[in-house]
């Protein structure tokens, strides 16, 4: 096994270790922060330049996956800069940065993990620090309650996922996704069980895996934790939970679906159900919200419902469309939540008070672009994301689902336009809310909007990348 292929991971782990030592000796947040930034930069460089394809020891590293990881690390760097005044706040000990670092490592590992054990370990390494991060504001009852809910439901979900893995291991006899795929094709595990028992266990494992994954994405039956955590946790933790873990979960789901592609009818029926119900539930519930962060949680439920519909298509183009959708969604939530990063006491930021954002006109324009993109209006990337999903849905000539999906997304317009109305059209007194907008972070958000417009008009390169990721993963 060529251990040198894992250099980006070593850089991140090295960074973590150095930070642990700094925390132990000097306990200065700024130094930890800079070390974290440095390790990020090194990892990003390694990801981009020093790429060696490896398929061994439960790992599968391909160029396209490294490119995807490069994008994730770029996003982490953006997060690193945007949330610095939260992380370096004197209320919290510098060690909270370690939690973010470890979660990042788990995330990167999850994207290249190729066997059930690695997937489970990386998943838990990604999630456990987040349970702790959610509870970092120890004086705020609501934040603790949110963290508790996140923890308990998270534990249940990972147990369900684990049960799925166990049953998968039961019917195939191996935990490496490649061999699982082959074993399922030749039905190797028949000798242990009778054929229909074998099929039942397979179905059960798919059911449990869908349950586990849809918890992490926040799809309908398993979404309950999201609104509470979005509302109560520290704003940069919310930004982290809402963006990067989702791309890792998407890659994981991709691998699981490809591995267990002989149970395709189970995956499709479940994903369709969960997807459509989430879109409907997310959009419907968001109509009634007036807390900004809670509304963003429900809108992300709706968007993840769309991602589930994309995964339902099961064809390489469909899954690439799903991945593209996820990347665009992450870009959009970076904008919508990144803007709120600068509003202090944002737990209580109501839709009615959005007029206050007008005090910084650029921020209002950026947020409006993000909202229109979430709604799926053409010049922005949101439209291209929806387009890729609907075109893949129609390719498998499933026009009914496409029509249902797009009509449900019209409901979303209700609350998106309410937000733009509150910002731009209301004339009454503007509530005074302190907004600490750094010049460079405003520039970064502006860069994100331009990137949103660029993808909205010329989405070709990103689509090619996602197609490469899916095709290189099709090792079967």
């Amino acid at each position: 096994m060529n251990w040198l292929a894992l250099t980006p991971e070593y850089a991140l782990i090295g960074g973590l270790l150095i930070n642990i030592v700094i925390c132990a000796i000097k306990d200065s947040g700024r130094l930890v922060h800079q070390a974290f930034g440095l390790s990020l930069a090194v990892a990003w460089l390694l990801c981009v330049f020093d790429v060696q394809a490896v398929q061994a020891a439960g790992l599968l590293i391909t160029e396209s996956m490294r490119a995807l990881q490069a994008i994730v690390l770029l996003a982490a760097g953006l997060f690193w800069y945007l949330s610095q005044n939260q992380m370096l706040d004197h209320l919290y000990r510098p060690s909270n940065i370690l939690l973010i670092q470890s979660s990042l490592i788990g995330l990167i590992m999850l994207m290249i993990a190729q066997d059930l054990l690695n997937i489970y370990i990386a998943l838990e390494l990604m999630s456990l620090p987040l349970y702790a991060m959610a509870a970092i504001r120890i004086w705020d009852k609501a934040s603790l309650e949110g963290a508790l809910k996140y923890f308990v439901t998270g534990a249940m979900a990972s147990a369900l996922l684990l049960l799925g893995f166990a049953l998968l291991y039961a019917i195939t006899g191996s935990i490496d996704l490649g061999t699982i795929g082959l074993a399922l094709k030749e039905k190797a595990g028949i000798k242990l069980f009778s054929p229909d028992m074998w099929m039942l266990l397979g179905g059960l494992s798919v059911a449990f895996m869908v349950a586990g994954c849809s918890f992490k994405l926040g799809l309908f039956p398993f979404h309950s934790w999201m609104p509470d955590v979005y509302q109560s946790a520290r704003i940069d933790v919310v930004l982290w939970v809402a963006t990067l873990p989702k791309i890792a979960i998407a890659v994981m789901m991709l691998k699981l679906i490809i591995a267990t592609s002989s149970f395709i009818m189970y995956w499709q029926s479940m994903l369709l159900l969960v997807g459509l119900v989430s879109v409907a539930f997310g959009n419907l519930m968001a109509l009634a919200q007036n807390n900004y962060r809670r509304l963003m949680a429900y809108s992300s439920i709706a968007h993840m419902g769309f991602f589930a519909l994309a995964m339902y298509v099961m064809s390489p183009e469909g899954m690439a469309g799903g991945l593209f959708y996820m990347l665009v969604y992450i870009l959009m939530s970076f904008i919508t939540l990144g803007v709120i990063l600068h509003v202090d006491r944002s737990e209580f930021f109501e839709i009615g008070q959005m007029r206050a954002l007008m005090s910084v006109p650029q921020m209002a324009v950026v947020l409006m672009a993000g909202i229109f993109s979430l709604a799926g209006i053409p010049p922005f990337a949101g439209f291209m994301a929806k387009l890729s999903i609907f075109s893949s849905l129609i390719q498998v000539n499933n026009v009914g689902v496409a029509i249902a999906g797009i009509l449900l997304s019209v409901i979303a317009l209700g609350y998106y336009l309410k937000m733009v109305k509150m910002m731009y059209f209301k004339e009454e007194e503007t509530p005074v809310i302190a907004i600490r907008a750094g010049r460079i972070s405003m520039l970064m958000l502006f860069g994100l909007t331009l990137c949103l417009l660029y993808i909205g008009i010329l989405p070709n390169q990103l689509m090619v990348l996602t197609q490469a990721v899916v095709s290189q993963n099709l090792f079967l």
Partner: protein
Amino acid sequence: MMSEIYTSLAGLVCFSPLIGALIAGFFAKRIGAFGAQFMTILCVAIAFASALVLFNYMYIEETRVFNYSLYTWIAMPGITFEVGFWLDRLSVGMMLVVTAVSLLVHIYSMGYMKGDPGIQRFFAYVSFFTFAMLMLVGGNNLLQVFFGWEGVGVASYLLIGFWFHKDSAANGAFKAFVVNRVGDFGFLLAMGLFVTYVGSLNFSDIFHRIPDLAAVSLGGMPLIDWICMLLFIGAMGKSAQMPLHIWLPESMEGPTPISALIHAATMVTAGVYLLVRLSPLFEFSPMIRSWILVIGATGGLILGMIAIVNHDIKRVVAYSTLSQLGYMMAAVGASAYGLAMFHLITHAFFKALLFLAAGAVIVAAHHEQDMRKFGGLIHSIPLVGVVFAIGSMSLMAVPLFSGFYSKDAIIAAIGATSLPGAHYAYYCLLMGVMVTSIYSVRAFYLTFLGQPRSNIHIHELSNTIKWPLIILAIPSMGLGYVLAPMAGNLHWFGEAIFYTHQSVTDLAGINGHLNHPGSMAMDAINSAPFILMLLSSFATYWIYRYSWAEKISKIFAPIQCLLENKWYFDWLVEQLLVPFVWIFSRAFNRVGDQLLIDQLMVMGPAKLLESFSLRIKAHISGHLYHYAILMLLGTAVLISKVVMI
């Protein structure tokens, strides 16, 4: 060589008033009131002169039609719409009449409108009207006639509503335009039939294709009847025939020169001119022609009677116009097109004279129009009295006056035709003669004779008002005598007017009469219309001389109230039609648009969704174990999916 002269002359006739209108309209500030008046009168004078030159070309040498198309308006596959001239004796005659009357009205209104702030605007509108009328008369296809038709409607809308600060003027203008549009609706459908069946709107193509138009039938009725009916509806709108006449009395709100020019001489006769111009068509649909005859005749009688009880001098003259138009339409119905044109021309002059005289009376009495306040004005404005008398006598068809030749010829022609309804029409028109003389003598007596009923200080009239009266008085007296022989011979208009064999035989007798007008006047003594006219005029003179009017009106009280309400036509529109439309539109707006579509279909779902989501939100309790239960239920559903497949 001749065609260049014709085109340039026709161009001059038609387009110089337009140039005058544009200059008076757009450069009003710079050239001032006098400049505007001068320019417009100069242009109309040029138009009149060139019409005169064209007239003598046409009448002396030419009998051929000169059809020249100026430019193609729009080209479609299979049909091209053009704008062009169609000069023959009929159109040049009309051009001459229009330009003559318009010139006189221009000069007259210099005096009449003196001191009015919007005088440039007035002159611009009048010359625009003249341009539109000349386009209508000179057009070589129905599209250009329609262009002139609507242009004239717009001009009358602007001019009736000239003193727009007056509510009555604004309502009158609106009513006139909408009623005209009802007529134009019919005209447009007729044009549609021509385009689809004949494939072109040019008169030359239409007249060639008449035989196969007669052959085709559409929905039971022969096509030619449909076309003639629709054209007649158009003519009814414009020439104020029976049901669509309600707008003419209100159009008296406009300044008097306008009533003279538009609502007596030119615009209202456009309908008659159209039917005469399309005489080859009407000759082949006797059924429609009998309808025209009946409607014209009833109009002639009934509308005339209203004038008997009316007190406003201008409205009396307006109702007399309505009844004379009925005569012209009846003549057209009896396919005596030449006589209709003859009456149209003579009527243009003596009716313009009557209006201008009435205008002079109104100016003299400081814009007072109610005849009950006049009386004995013959002493203060003798010239106007004499001129008014000439006009009335010509109107009443006193022999040797111009009205006599044209009106009695029409009555005789109608007596001679064999169309169904001809007898009814003949008797109506005879009664009409009686009614005409009653209201003319009444109007003359009330205004000029008898004791002055109120102490109006008579205002001295300027010569720009006096001279047009005198100039107009001459043709009112002499024109009939001069033109009678020409109107007599059927082929005098060349092939502009077409007579079937049947109508030629009917009309032969009357034309014989007209050829020597002198003897016609002599032996008119023992003709019925003359006797009726004499009797009724003396009777009215005696009634008003010994002021029995009140007693008589009490005897005929029901007829009096019937006439006062103008045969309930206005009542029919005001109380029935307008409220009905109002209820309809309010219902559509309230129920149809706002309630049904807007609230129910559009806002309904939005409100439903919002209330539904609020109800669900209340159910989310936030307890951890409820979340756990939800997750378990979700997993159970997923497992059931596995078991079922």
